[in-house]
Structures are given as C-alpha cells and as structure tokens.
C-alpha cells in the first residue's frame, strides 16, 4: 500500500466518514429495563423489547413517550445529544436512563 493510500485508510478509520448509526436493545423483563442505563450517539435507535405480558411505556417527563405493547418491541431514533431519565408511566417504579453523545 502506498503512503497515500494508507493516509486515506487512516482518515476513514478515524471517522471523517460518519459512523454507522446503531440499534441498541433494551430488554424489559419482569418490570426491569435492562440495561438500565444506555450510552448512545445521536442518530442511534433504541429498541425496547418487552418480554412482559404487561404494556409499558418509556416516558420522559415533559418530553417524548414510546408505547411498548406486551410481548412487542418499540423503537425510537435519538435526535440529539442529551442525558434523559425515563420511566414507565404505568409503573413509575420502572426507571431507565439514556446518555446520548453528539
């Protein structure tokens, strides 16, 4: 590989090309969000996989809400960098956190 090609390869590797958006799963089992805290980047998608027979929500007070039906999944694409605590509106003892980097 020539020096020039190596340079291009390096440039690509250190992320001048935007990183691929990821889908991160959060499982809900017996009223627990797992993992409870997730680190993600803006543009990533969170997919909540509900193993319970109960409907849940992921709700941010004064912000967004995702309905997660029993035995189903629901997704949200993270729009911006922020740290948010969310909870289930039906069972407010269920809590989770998203740490979204730019």
């Amino acid at each position: 590989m020539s020096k020039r090609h190596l340079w291009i390869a390096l440039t690509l590797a250190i992320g001048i090309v935007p990183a691929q958006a990821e889908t991160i799963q959060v499982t809900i089992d017996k009223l627990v969000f797992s993992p409870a805290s997730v680190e993600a980047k803006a543009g990533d998608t969170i997919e909540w996989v509900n193993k319970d027979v109960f409907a849940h929500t992921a709700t941010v007070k004064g912000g967004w809400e995702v309905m997660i039906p029993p035995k189903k999944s629901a997704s949200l694409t993270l729009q911006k960098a922020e740290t948010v605590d969310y909870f289930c509106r039906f069972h407010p003892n269920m809590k989770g956190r998203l740490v979204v980097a730019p």
Partner: protein
Amino acid sequence: MLIRHTATLAAMLLLGTAPFAQAADKPTDPQIAHIAYTAGVIDVEAAKLAIGKSKNKDVVDFANDMVRDHEAVNLQALDLVKKLKVTPEDNATSQALSKAAADERAKLAKLEGAAFDKAYVDNEVAYHKQVNGALETLLIPSASNAELKSLLETGLKIFQGHEQHAEHVAGMLK
C-alpha cells in the same frame, strides 16, 4: 387455634385495621394463590365501576390500566395453578378481602363526580399499599413453590408501580 386465628384475621380485615399483618398462620400455596387472585379481581371490579362512573380522563385511563394489568396477572396466575395442578383454596382472608371490597364499592357507588374520583383514587392508593404489605410480609415469604413465589414477586413490582401511579393521579386531582 387455627379457627380462632383465622376468625381474628377475618375480623381485623372487616374492621380495616392492619389487615393481613397479624396473620398467625402461614397460608398454604393454594390459599396464597386464591388470595392473590381475589385481590386482583377486587381491583378490576373497582376499576370497572370507575370506568362507568368517572368523567375524568386521568381517572378513567388509570382504571383502564388497572383492568389491563390485573387481568394479565390473573391470567398468568391461572396458567400457573393449572401447570402446577394446584386448586386455589378459598379461605377466611380471601372472604374478608371480598367483603371489605364489596363494602367499599357500595360506598363508592353512592358518590358522584369529583367526590367519586377522589374516593376511588384514594382507595386505590390505600388498597395497593395494603396488598403490597401483605405480599411482602406474608404471601411471598409463605409461598413454598418457587414459580408461585416468582409470580408473586412480579405481582409486587406491578402493584408497587400501581401504588405510585395512583399517588400521581391523586396528586393531579388536588
């Protein structure tokens, strides 16, 4: 001895003082299953009354949540007792719970509007608190089957969630 304690427990439930808490006799699994199922049915009945009577969206939404969750828990309970070949056994605690609930429903049925909403939601807070206390101190520790214990533990988390949800709705009614 057993009869006397059971009668005392039933009397305490009727009077509404520290129900369950003083139970001297450890309930058996078939009795625990019956008590837990009865407790769910009671909350569904109260919720159906609220859905029929209340004009407050927060209260009706809450009541619908109660019907959905408690019916889902009880369906799981039925599946479990079938799998374990356990026949839920009626007992003084279940009977006292049902009697107390019938009295409460009769009281609620006479109320209208905001007075009904407040009484229903306040009772939901108190009722879930009472059932959670019983689950934690009596029913879960007494359960001998591991799957029954696990279902009761999930039930406790659900009911603790409902207690907080009810407190939230109560706060909105003020």
